[in-house]
């Protein structure tokens, strides 16, 4: 048995620093990787996943230190190997892909050239033309469209998903025996992540590569791994094959992890419902186009159509979710809604008043009612200003309170969002991401807004903190009747938080409806695609094999005529090529921009349907 092992980790411990102050981050980890198999390592943020995966390629740098253990690759301990021997393995037999593909390559050189450079380092005798051809062939194999011209493009011209494919090519070009993949799908959109996983599985089969697949998402791990080890605070608490760990998790931590995986269809509990309150925010046919210079031609500009005519209404106290892949115009829309920019056409009405007509004080007081919360909890708070002063600033700007009154108002808001008021005079140094996000929320809430735009506000937080903040948003909504606009790519979060959901594709809403219909009976193929690509541990009503998209959305400079989704739609018909569909009410009550009849789409999976029927009927949400 032992001779067959490709990689064997024994008793591995890694600590930070040395002497008395040393902190053990990985302790006594042991596992084995067989040839041609996929080992999944799952752990939450801070569990030591990345450190462990770096140790596998002998990439542990001071102040981190391996204190004990061995990493035996084909009978040789990598940690003891002389640097020259290690260099002969790295990038050749052992490849590594990290979580952030966009910073992995030299930003000033074309992607293809850098992969070619690596290939020719490994095989110095390979003629340049042949090396280039091999890179292009493999770029083709990972389905990078027009690989030959992409070969000469620069890293910044690649999207995150394309770049991750390029890194996979870079790793596999040397036909490695072992590939360490550290959280490689984390920064990607669900549709792209699903494609990458499928691709990795295919390539693993074709190349016979063993993969150590590290991830924080159970849903992702179970889709690729043969065996799973669970890492908690630097120790392995459980190791089982993928099938049994889902059915019979033994360790309490594994059970907890499994329970935390967000559910979209099973045991979802109550979902928010729509209401009949007056409309607070009305968006009418809003569009925005940006002009960027075209490097390839003289004095010409390209028109990037970021938002192309979006309309929707949000009622008082309701939550609307806007979902879609990166680049679909979600963030541009949020900039338009928060009047950071003005739309080229269309109108945004707040309580019946067109925002574009407001000037001076009227605009300022409208803005008071309209607050924006962003994703990054670190850069959105000044680090040298006390927490209290940060939260108080909007009150000063709008001249709403001074002196003792101001302090009381701030403390009240801090209590409301779950920040201890003794932090008033503290600096934000040392606050966790969740606490920082609470400071942001307090800063917005102090103005008693009626509409909050949450642009990926919770995306940077882990699932526990996310759940707590969602509860906070719920209670604030109940108490103050606030309207939320969730802009997110996280479908599970939207499922839990939003009464109505709009799906965007290439700057347009392709489907809009209430929570239940969007998740259980969507009529647009794109909505179904998004749902089919979610990584979960449950049976899905829409199967990836029916819907999984190839490639990525076309760039918003060259939008195809007719239906803009037709270039990726698996069910395209002749009409789609010429006629652009408008939103119309389909069966199930959603407004859908699609020529197809729902009956022409594959029926939701029977298995999942039966389970949905069996699931406890949701309770009243309010």
């Amino acid at each position, binding site marked *: 048995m032992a001779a067959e092992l490709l990689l064997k980790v024994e008793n591995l411990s890694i600590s930070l620093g040395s002497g008395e102050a040393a902190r053990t981050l990985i302790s006594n980890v042991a596992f084995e990787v067989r040839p041609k198999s996929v080992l999944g390592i799952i752990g939450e943020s801070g569990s030591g996943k990345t450190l462990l995966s770096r140790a596998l390629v002998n990439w542990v740098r001071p102040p981190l230190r391996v204190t004990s253990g061995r990493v035996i690759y084909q009978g040789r301990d990598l940690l003891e190997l002389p640097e020259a021997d290690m260099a002969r393995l790295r990038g050749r037999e052992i490849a590594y892909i990290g979580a952030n593909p966009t910073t992995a390559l030299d930003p*000033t050189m074309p992607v293809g050239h850098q992969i070619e450079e690596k290939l020719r380092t490994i095989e110095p005798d390979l003629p340049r033309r042949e090396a280039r051809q091999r890179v292009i062939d493999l770029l083709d194999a990972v389905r990078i469209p027009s690989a030959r011209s992409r070969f000469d493009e620069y890293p910044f011209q690649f999207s995150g998903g394309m770049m991750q494919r390029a890194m996979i090519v870079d790793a596999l070009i040397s036909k490695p025996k072992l590939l360490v993949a550290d959280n490689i799908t984390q920064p990607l959109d669900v549709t792209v992540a699903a494609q990458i996983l499928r691709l990795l599985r295919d390539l693993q089969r074709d190349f016979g590569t063993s993969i150590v697949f590290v991830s924080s998402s159970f849903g992702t791990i179970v889709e690729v791994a043969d065996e799973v080890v669970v890492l908690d605070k630097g120790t392995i608490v459980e190791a089982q094959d993928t099938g049994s760990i889902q059915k019979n998790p033994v360790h309490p931590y594994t059970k907890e992890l499994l329970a935390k995986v967000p559910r979209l269809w099973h045991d979802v509990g109550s979902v928010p419902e729509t209401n009949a309150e007056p409309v607070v925010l009305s968006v009418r046919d809003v569009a925005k186009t940006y002009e960027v210079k075209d490097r390839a031609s*003289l004095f010409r500009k390209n028109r990037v159509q970021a938002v192309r005519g979006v309309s929707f209404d949000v009622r008082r106290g309701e939550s609307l979710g806007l979902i879609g892949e990166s680049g679909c115009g979600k963030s541009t829309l949020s900039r338009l809604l928060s009047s950071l920019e003005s739309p080229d056409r269309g109108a945004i009405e707040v309580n019946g008043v067109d925002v574009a007509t407001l000037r001076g004080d009227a605009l300022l007081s409208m803005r008071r009612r309209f607050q924006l919360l962003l994703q990054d909890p670190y850069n959105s708070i000044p680090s040298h200003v006390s927490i209290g002063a940060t939260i108080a600033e909007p009150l000063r700007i709008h001249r709403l309170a001074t002196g003792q009154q101001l302090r009381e108002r701030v403390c009240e808001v801090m209590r409301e969002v779950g920040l201890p008021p003794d932090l008033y005079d503290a600096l934000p140094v040392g606050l966790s991401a969740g606490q920082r996000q609470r400071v942001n929320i307090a800063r917005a809430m102090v103005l008693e807004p009626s509409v909050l735009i949450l642009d990926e506000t919770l995306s940077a937080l882990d699932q526990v903190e996310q759940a707590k903040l969602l509860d906070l948003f719920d209670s604030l909504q109940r108490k103050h009747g606030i309207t939320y606009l969730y802009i997110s790519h996280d479908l599970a979060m939207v499922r839990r938080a939003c009464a109505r959901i709009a799906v965007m594709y290439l700057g347009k809403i392709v489907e809009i409806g209430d929570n239940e219909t969007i998740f259980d009976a969507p009529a647009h193929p794109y909505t179904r695609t998004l749902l089919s690509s979610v990584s979960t541990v449950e049976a899905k009503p829409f199967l990836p094999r029916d819907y999984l998209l190839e490639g990525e959305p076309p760039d918003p400079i060259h939008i195809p005529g007719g239906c803009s989704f037709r270039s990726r739609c698996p069910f395209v018909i002749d009409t789609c090529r010429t006629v652009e569909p408008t939103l119309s009410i389909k069966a199930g009550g959603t407004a859908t921009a699609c020529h197809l009849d729902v009956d022409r789409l594959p029926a939701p999976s029977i298995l999942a349907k039966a389970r949905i029927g069996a699931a406890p009927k949701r309770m009243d949400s309010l």
Partner: protein
Amino acid sequence: MAFALEFFLRRISQGVLIVLAVAFVIFTLLRIAPGDPIRIILGPMATPSAMEETAERLGLRDPIPMQFLRYLGDIAKGDFGNSFIRGKQGGTTGGSQDAAGSPPVERAPVIELIAKALPYTLLLAACGFLLACLVSIPLGIMAGVKNSGWPQKVALYLSSLLVSLPNVWVGIVLIYLLSARTGWLPAIGYQHIGYVIIPAIVVAVELAPVMIRSISVAVATNVQDPFYEIGQVRGLSARTMLFRHVLRNAAVPLLNSFGAQMIGMLLGGLFVVEYIFSFPGIGLLTINAVFQRDFPVIQTVAIFASTVLVFINIAVDFASTTIDRRLKF
């Protein structure tokens, strides 16, 4: 291709405007500054009527914008004017030596004076810059790659030391040590290439600390970028990553500091150094011209200097966008 064409069309037209503005400012300032050049040309003994006559002939009594337009018209014809002071055969002909005043045609054309001085200045600049590069490129790279160890300490102490030495003082000390005391090297004036060594060292002493600092900072920044370590995990050697990728990335901020800072320093340094060493370059020509209120020489040198600066910056920006395609200009 299209990008390059548009870039140069736009930047050169901007550059011409900048040079014109600089020329106008210098032209005006020289004419409103106190001191009458006629008095210098004709000497203290000249009669007021002779002075008035010469001024009229030289066009110095017309309104300044008119003088400027006439000057531009002459430049367009390739005529940068004649020196007020210097004669065709070289040597100063102003003041008491030539109290009667000779007609301007006999004075040396400015363009010739510059053409004669320019090669010396270019030689000195090139030697000084090369010398500075020899020291600061290896030291800067070594100091940037590792943020500990002796290269970093040497770089820090050496650049602190050099930056605090005034070039006038360095010049005099070197003249004393290498020339007056030991007789190893010639120092004053110019007769052969040996005369360039000491002045070049002084120029290099002024440039080196800035170069060491900016090279080590640029290299250190890029070594911390993830691609440097990841490249080694990908199987490329640290050497390849340093010489093919880190230096390429570091070149962009370096080019910028070269265009914005070092060229200015070099020009300023050359003026002082040439004066100390009586080195017959543009710097000495200009400083003498300033003392003698030789307007045509001063303004032509100023226009040349601003043209050189503008065009070096255009070249630097073009090189930067070619190296890093993310940059836009």
